[in-house]
């Protein structure tokens, strides 16, 4: 597993505080508490269905879950058309499937193993998901059961062990149903009822999305992206309805977020039933694990470079596209759905979070910038251009109500710093862009790292060697102010007094030995006679008692006409010795010439 998979720690994140009273940022355009809708965010779409500039709202209504399933179209506040759906819808999207004029968008309803395409609100085409290969063991088992070679309990056992082996979704729907039968009698009945039919393994659509094919324009042709119960993601060609690409995932897709172009480069972010989020790329046959959640996802939206995931454990997480967790906020209540609020006129992308406690929180990054209170818990949300209004927020309640809000033209969303999170966390460091030079340099450093290290080590050794050599030389010539010879342990310190041209040099000598005194020492001043005239160039030093400092001094006259400064060498010599005991080099200051 790749290294940037991130597992959020238990119970991480701050708690969100409910702020203030109801929002003044929205106008209520329509409120029908008895619209009788039963739907989810994935089953709603907005599109200019008749290409007249007025955008319609398309809702796949789940009805009672078994009856009364309908495809409803709202024109403004009025229900303008209804189409009966045969099976439970799992998703609705609108897309352009051709470029013929007028450019009417088609509606695709995912339902069971089929995608129903509507054009002009009339059924146009039905796409059937490819049948899957039936597991040979399963196939044989059913065949034998049909020919009465296998009795019910044996069949159950074979299928049950097969289920453990290949997983629930590796079996046919018939086997799944059979395994769900609670007792011997019902299993027998089921077998009798179905054994005569051909065993087929079909999968159902669990999520649907669109992906623009070659152009990013609003009216450009889009491919369909389908997530299936067989843990696959298919990309369908919109014209021929062939499968352009198929990717298998470790788990079943629940939410899809798609961006990019099929022909160029795209990313499909898939939140799966196993609580993991995968990223699919162009030309890759497997999904890259991106995020590991510790609870199931209840909503997924992508904003700029961030992925927002709401989970069943009441957390809202924000991740980078790479899967790095940026923050987590815990809500006071269960999250039912998420929606991206993109306000183009303000260049803002917010995230709306609907909570079970009837509130809808609107997040700007990690800050709650608005709270909407509804009369009932929200089950589905959709934001976008509806009718002729850009910023319309459509909310469907758990009880079936339809509520439409319109953003006030003058509404602004400012992060409320008083919500306790502090402004410091919000300020981003303004990191300058990487220059080409920087990148080149980094590349070079990365490629030649070994060589560079060797050169560095080589230079370091050379430096050490040079230092050692100089040290040895210094010792040899005694050109250091502290003598370390055992015979004459001496310390010398010199001082220059005066402003010039006449200076006084004061030399302090100290015997640093424990007990032996120094005898017969002389201090010699040596300087360039063009620059300095030393008054007493040789001074006799009396016996030096250990520990007592002796001071010798002399006047030095700067005789240089140019007023340059030079050095004066102070040497401590011993009688009958060719080598000085100590040497000190004094850098003279520049003389203040009185001209």
């Amino acid at each position: 597993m790749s290294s940037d998979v991130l597992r959020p720690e238990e119970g991480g994140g701050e708690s969100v505080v409910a702020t203030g009273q109801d929002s003044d940022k929205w106008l209520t355009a329509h409120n029908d508490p008895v619209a009788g809708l039963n739907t989810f965010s994935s089953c709603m779409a907005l599109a200019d269905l008749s290409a007249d500039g007025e955008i319609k709202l398309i809702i796949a209504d789940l009805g009672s879950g078994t009856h009364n399933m309908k495809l409803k179209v709202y024109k403004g506040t009025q229900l303008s058309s209804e189409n009966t759906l045969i099976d439970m819808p799992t998703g609705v999207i609108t897309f352009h499937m051709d470029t013929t004029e007028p450019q009417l968008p088609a509606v695709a309803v995912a339902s069971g193993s089929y995608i129903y395409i509507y054009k002009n609100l009339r059924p146009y085409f039905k796409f059937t998901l490819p049948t899957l290969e039936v597991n040979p063991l399963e196939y044989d088992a059913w065949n034998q059961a049909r020919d009465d070679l296998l009795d019910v309990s044996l069949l159950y056992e074979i299928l049950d062990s097969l289920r453990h082996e290949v997983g629930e979704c590796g079996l046919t729907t018939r086997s799944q149903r059979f395994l769900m039968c609670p007792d011997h009698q019902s299993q027998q009945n089921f077998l009798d009822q179905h054994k005569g039919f051909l065993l087929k393994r079909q999968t159902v659509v669990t999520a649907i999305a669109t992906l623009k094919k070659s152009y990013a324009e609003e009216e450009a042709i889009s491919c369909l992206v389908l997530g299936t119960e067989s843990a696959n993601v298919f990309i369908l060609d919109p014209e021929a309805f062939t499968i352009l690409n198929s990717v298998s995932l470790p788990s079943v897709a629940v939410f899809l977020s798609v961006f990019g172009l099929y022909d160029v480069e795209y990313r499909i972010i898939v939140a799966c039933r196993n609580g993991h989020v995968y990223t699919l790329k162009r030309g890759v046959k497997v999904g890259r694990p991106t995020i590991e959640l510790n609870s199931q996802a209840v909503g997924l939206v992508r904003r700029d470079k961030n992925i927002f995931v709401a989970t069943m454990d009441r957390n809202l997480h924000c991740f980078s596209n790479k899967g790095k967790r940026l923050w987590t906020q815990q809500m006071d209540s269960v999250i039912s759905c998420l929606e991206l609020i993109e306000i183009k006129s303000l260049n803002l992308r917010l995230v709306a979070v609907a909570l079970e406690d009837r509130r809808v929180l609107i997040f700007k990054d990690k800050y709650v910038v608005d709270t909407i209170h509804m009369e009932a818990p929200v089950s589905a949300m959709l934001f976008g251009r509806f009718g002729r209004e850009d910023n319309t927020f459509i909310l469907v309640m758990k009880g079936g109500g339809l509520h439409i809000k319109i953003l006030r033209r003058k509404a602004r969303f400012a992060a409320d710093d008083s919500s306790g999170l502090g402004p410091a966390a919000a300020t981003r460091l303004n990191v300058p862009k990487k220059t080409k030079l920087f990148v080149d340099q980094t590349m070079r450093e990365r490629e030649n790292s070994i060589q560079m290290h060797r050169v560095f080590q080589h230079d370091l050794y050379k430096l050490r060697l040079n230092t050692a050599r100089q040290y040895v030389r210094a010792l040899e010539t005694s050109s250091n102010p502290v003598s370390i010879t055992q015979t004459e342990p001496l310390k010398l310190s010199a001082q220059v007094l005066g402003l010039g041209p006449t200076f006084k040099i004061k030399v302090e000598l100290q015997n640093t030995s424990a007990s032996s005194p120094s005898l017969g020492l002389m201090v010699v001043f040596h300087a360039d006679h063009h620059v300095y005239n030393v008054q007493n160039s040789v001074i006799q030093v009396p016996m030096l008692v250990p520990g007592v400092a002796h001071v010798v001094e002399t006047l030095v006259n700067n005789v240089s006409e140019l007023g340059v400064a030079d050095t004066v060498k102070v040497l401590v010599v011993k009688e009958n010795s060719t080598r000085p005991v100590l040497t000190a080099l004094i850098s003279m200051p520049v003389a203040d010439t009185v001209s």
Partner: protein
Amino acid sequence: MGLFDKLAFSLGLKKREANILVVGLDNAGKSTVLNHFKPEDQRTSDVVPTVGYNVEKFKTKSVGLTAFDMSGQARYRNLWEAYYQDCQGIIFVVDSSERLRLVVAKEELDIMLEHPLIKPRRLPILFLANKMDLRDAISSVKVSAALGLDRLTDKPWHITACNAVTGDGLHEGIDWLSQMIKDAVDKNAQKL
């Protein structure tokens, strides 16, 4: 008003001139309304969404009007206030078939009425409940209720249902407005 103008008016030598502002949401039919007041031969058959604003001049029985046809698109609505100062009357056009955005129309009306250049003045406002021919259209009474006009007590106002394409109902409205403007101009002239 200068002495000459006053004299000219009373002698009927000079027509009274006034500026009116035509506002309302995009697609309400403002340009279509004004198109109808133009002489037959100058009318355009195809009204396109206005960008920014257009200026149209036309004459009514009592005054000559210069109409500022503002664009109703959200991104141009803050242009409206630039013309508040110099107008003597307002036409507020509402698409009475577009129930979804009646709240938005009300919101824009409220913003306008609260503006310091409008609030203290007794400007006559003509409301046109347009597109009454459409099936979804609601009556002018309902439009009036949706806009909360009962609370508009400090200005003379009038609402009429109309069809800007055929011109039905427009003349009743514009006659009312020009009468109001004429009265105001005359009253002003007497004051001087």
